[in-house]
């Protein structure tokens, strides 16, 4: 085995895609969660936090069962929707999305709950529709929460191991992400190669954090 950029590239693609999907899905979900408490909302909130407390291998195993062609759920998904994802790059994205839910929904819901209700009401009284209020008042005010959620989700997805190993296998060139390539290198006692992957992953994470920090501080200067 030699150092190869492909696992890093795959990691970057999976992390970016799953972060983008999570952002789009989590915004409406978080607005809904931030409304008045109800039993249903409490249940959904617990469900969203499950990946935080469950070992990633358990989450991965659940997804493995869900999509398994040998089980009714997998057969249904396959025959009805043509969904056959196990051991493909799609499975990595699905695994990352499920494992990343609490990292995106947590900061977003907290940010939305912290917004004073008068902000949206002031906008309505000024004649603006709910959509205009969302786009021009609420989302800009949520910028720090959105950035925080995006960074932690992306960083978490970059380092995701257990879930992607369970649903992706570790097929070189297909589902072997950087953290899995690192693990494989250690397993075959190739520590020089492992060090390269570890260094590259660390560099990737640090650059993302640095870019976001820069964004945030430029925002603070404006404020």
């Amino acid at each position, binding site marked *: 085995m030699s150092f190869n950029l492909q696992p890093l590239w795959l990691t970057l693609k999976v992390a970016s895609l799953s972060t983008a999907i999570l952002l789009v899905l989590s915004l409406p979900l978080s607005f809904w969660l931030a409304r008045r408490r109800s039993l249903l909302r409490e249940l959904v909130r617990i469900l969203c936090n499950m990946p935080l407390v469950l070992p990633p291998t358990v989450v991965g195993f659940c997804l493995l069962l869900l999509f398994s062609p040998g089980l009714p759920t997998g057969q249904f998904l396959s025959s009805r929707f043509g969904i056959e994802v196990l051991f493909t790059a799609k499975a990595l994205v699905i695994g990352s999305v499920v494992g990343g839910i609490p990292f995106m929904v947590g900061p977003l819901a907290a940010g939305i709950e912290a917004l004073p209700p008068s902000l949206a009401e*002031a906008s309505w*009284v*000024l004649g603006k529709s709910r959509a205009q209020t969302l786009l021009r008042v609420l989302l*800009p005010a949520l910028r720090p929460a959105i950035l925080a959620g995006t960074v932690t989700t992306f960083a978490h997805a970059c380092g995701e191991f257990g879930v992607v190993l369970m649903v992706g296998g570790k097929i070189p060139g297909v589902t072997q992400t950087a953290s899995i390539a690192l693990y494989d290198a250690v397993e075959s006692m190739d520590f020089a190669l492992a060090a390269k992957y570890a260094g590259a992953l660390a560099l990737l994470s640090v650059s993302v954090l640095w870019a976001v920090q820069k964004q945030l501080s430029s925002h603070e200067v404006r404020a």
Partner: protein
Amino acid sequence: MITFSLRKTVSGARGPLELRFDAEVGKGESVALFGASGSGKTTLLRMLAGLTVPESGRIEVEGETWYDSAKGISLAPQKRRVGFVFQDYALFPTMTVRQNLSYALEKGGDRNAVAELLELMELAALAERLPATLSGGQRQRVALARALVRRPELLLLDEPLSALDMAMRRKLQDELVRVQRAFGVATMLVSHDPGEVVRTCSRVLSVEDGRFGRIGTPQEVFGGGRFSGKFRFQAELLSLEPSDVTVVASLLVGSEVVRVALMPDEAASLAPGDRVTVASKAFNPVLWKEA
């Protein structure tokens, strides 16, 4: 002319409270809603603005029906021409002062209106600042200016000055009167401060447990019986210090400490921490004009 008759049951501190508000407000009139916390004043403003839905009743503004439960009419807040100044001002944190005002403009609205309001409210120098960098008084002025951009038929102010110190309050009360006259807009102001009501409003609707109680000019509502030609202040007794034949009592009146002399027998029944009423006869008060 604005007429309303509104009913709603809300959960108050002492169980459910049935709100029953019926009144008329003339064009350009400034009316104070005066009463204890939890008596339904803010809910009334919210019902008028369309932010809270009443159970029944009607609201008519200059011949236009904003709400009529019998006919199933309820205009959205966007369609009612109200200006609302929230207690926390609700300025948009990511927009500058100018952007906060411009946001209120309708499509193709007159940009000069914003410039004029910035000038009128003495905000021109702050136009490019973000709300987080403004003082409480400045934020209040931005909130008031923003509420006026759409030329509302009805201006609703929910304790807009309660978070400010006395000097700033006085200044903004004068400003409010000036702006209210300049725009001729019917105004309803929630206030706990009789001084503020006297200075800013021509009529008081006192609110008691979800209904209007006494209604009249500030002099009629706050005068008659309560002041009876004397000065009366509520105060907290801070300390009692014997001094020769008298006892010097320090009193906290509003935010000022006043020292008065008492006879020892008068002081005997008092202790620091007591709530007291300080009264003076109408004779020989000292008055001087403020600089």
